[in-house]
């Protein structure tokens, strides 16, 4: 399976991945529309900034996905490509997955809202948008 990997050496902390993630998940066709009001909605990827080191973290689509196994509603499942995806119509926002994910890769979608996570942009594009728009190859999408 192709996965998203991180080269922290090259991460610039520009946070563009987060914005492209939001845009990708929004299914909007015009970039700014995904950010109505200017506030950044939660993204499926997050750039860590710690003592001058930056890197992006998103779902590892683990072999042993504790989020999926802990999900109370069955909203999390693997798609054909192996990506762990959320069915937003089934998710009740209980946050058990957030409690279970060892990487902190799942974020709250807000009260009563489905959670957000990386879905490898399965429905939009072949290459995840965070990878496609990383200016410095700090995130790559490669076979294991």
């Amino acid at each position: 399976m192709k996965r998203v990997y991180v080269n922290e050496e090259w991460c610039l902390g520009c946070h563009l991945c987060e914005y492209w993630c939001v845009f990708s998940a929004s299914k909007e066709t015009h970039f700014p529309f995904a950010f109505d009001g200017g506030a950044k909605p939660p993204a499926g990827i997050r750039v860590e900034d710690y003592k001058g080191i930056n890197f992006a973290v998103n779902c590892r689509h683990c072999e042993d996905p504790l989020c999926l196994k802990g999900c109370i509603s069955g909203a999390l499942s693997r798609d054909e490509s192996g990506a762990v995806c959320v069915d937003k119509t089934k998710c009740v926002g209980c946050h058990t997955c957030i409690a279970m994910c060892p990487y902190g890769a799942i974020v709250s979608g807000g009260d009563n809202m489905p959670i957000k996570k990386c879905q490898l942009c399965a429905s939009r594009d072949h290459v995840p948008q965070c990878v496609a728009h990383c200016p410095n190859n700090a995130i790559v999408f490669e076979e294991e």
Partner: protein
Amino acid sequence: MKYVIIGNGVASVGAIEAIRKNDKEGSITVFTDETYSCYGRPLISYYLEGKTTLDKMGYRGENFYKENNVSLMLGRPVTKLDAENKKVTAGGKKYDYDKLLVATGSSPFVPPTPGYEKVKNKFTFIRLSDALAIEKKVTKKSKVLIVGAGLTGLKAAEGLYPRAGKITVVDMADRVLPAVMDAESSAIIQKHLEGKGIKFCLNDSVREYSETAATLAGGAKIDFDVLITSVGVRPNVALVQDAGGVCERMTESGRPFRGIVTDDNQKTSLDDVYAAGDCTLSYDVTIGNTRPLAIQPNAYLQGEMAGNAMSGGITFKRNYLPVNAGGFIGLHIITAGSYVGEATTVRTENSFHRFFVKDNRLMGFIQIGEYSRVGILTDMIRKCTPIGSVDFQELIREPKLAALGMDYVKAVLNK
């Protein structure tokens, strides 16, 4: 190979998914007294609340049983287990098995109280059938009495909040969520719920019921239209117990059994009989011993482990721990582990975070309100990560992988 699974909860699904990874051929038969295919039990409060619907509640897709070639015997409870001859009896018929999984779950405990039998609209709150029955009886004018301020009781309160007129919660304990909160955090939840109009009678219990009222030990009288009892559950161990399987007895709490005893791979003391989920005990890494951990993530993981063990897949010792997450009318909590050792609290305007450290390990935490990436902390508890090896101050400020050290980050994120 004939696999038989008793019970239709998520442990059962975990087992089916694991078995089918290893064995595409063997027959799988699932017996259940319920008439629905698997759903997440905690969803029933969300159902009442209107956050989900019956058609969305299926734990797996419509064709799950068909795709996995499983015979699902709905409404067919198993009444007897003959471990010696490897047979189970259901609906008067006997069925052979080669490997059996007992995933019978637990049943609500209703304390014997005078007058309870007189109550017309009385319910427990554990199954979808409970929710569907309650739904019919509750209207905007209903007064609802909930006995039990634990997770189930409060989730019931949340579920009914938009539907009912008045909700009162009674509990013997002096605080809400006594099993998953400490006193200070309990108070935050209680205050929040009281702010929403829910009434609490704590440190008290029902002395006697009439048809539409309860008289409390403290003397108060509470009128209700609908009574929900949710003081706790008892593991369903009878089948295994009767067949001679070892179950752990618990004397001091009054419960006859804490659960079916299994090894790390969920095997019971009976040959070819496995058990998983609420009817069993789990190894709680934060106490270093087994105990009942009736939470859904564990049920799935144990079912999966059992399924692997039954079908020759990979098995290993999992570290389990209590993890609870959920909202109470807009206020979310996530808790994990045990609340032992030194507590550190970080409060902000919108959050209350408390961490428990003992023996250079994070043992547990309580997070209320806003939080992020707490799974990183759960993982530390699960893995017994030494506090000294991480930037703990940063972690409790805001969980991040970098605070666990770049070696770890590279190991998990780099190719």
